[in-house]
């Protein structure tokens, strides 16, 4: 049973560029969330997708956008990259319903903006 998988593992971008990160949820999971974790801090919620729609959003600018596909996989897009966007981006998934309280995370994508 594959867990949450993310790609790429590491990437370096230049200020002003755009980046796309990808996530496949754990088997049987249909809700995907994205988190940003700056060095030395806890993860911060970006947004959550369910049934291909954004359901919840954290305090992040519109430069951060996402998408969920019919197979439940998801993408995180960040436009006009800033140095402050350098962080570990984590994808998390869960299964809706009473038994789906546990939220699982992937290994993350390290983004460095130079």
């Amino acid at each position, binding site marked *: 049973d594959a867990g949450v998988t993310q790609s790429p593992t590491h990437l370096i971008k230049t200020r002003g560029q755009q980046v796309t990160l990808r996530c496949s949820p754990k088997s049987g999971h249909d809700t995907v969330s994205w988190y940003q974790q700056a060095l030395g801090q*806890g*993860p911060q*919620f970006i947004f959550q997708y369910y049934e291909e729609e954004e359901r919840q959003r954290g305090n992040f600018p519109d430069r951060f956008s996402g998408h969920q596909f019919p197979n439940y996989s998801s993408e995180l897009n960040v436009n006009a990259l800033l140095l402050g966007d350098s962080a570990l981006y984590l994808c998390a998934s869960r299964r809706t319903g009473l038994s789906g*309280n546990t939220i699982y*995370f992937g290994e993350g994508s*390290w983004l460095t903006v130079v």
Partner: protein
Amino acid sequence: SQQGEEDPQALSIQEGENATMNCSYKTSINNLQWYRQNSGRGLVHLILIRSNEREKHSGRLRVTLDTSKKSSSLLITASRAADTASYFCATDWMDSSYKLIFGSGTRLLVRP
């Protein structure tokens, strides 16, 4: 702002000793989950405790929850060098959104 705050921020113990980490939060919750993170890696789920539960065990882990004090503790017994990692508590609010709010974590060092 962070919902949960872990205490202590850093903890150094000898292998074989017990490690206790505490977490406080601000609002009513559905669940509280503990995660481990090795340096530069993803989050590994350790244990979930529901708001109507007071204590849960999983192997060498023991978690307690006191909703009246809005606090939780994670106890790791008979620690091992491999337990060296950062530990985070995460809460989700009563709105059932399952949006997790994390604290800043406890960095645990287990010395061999």
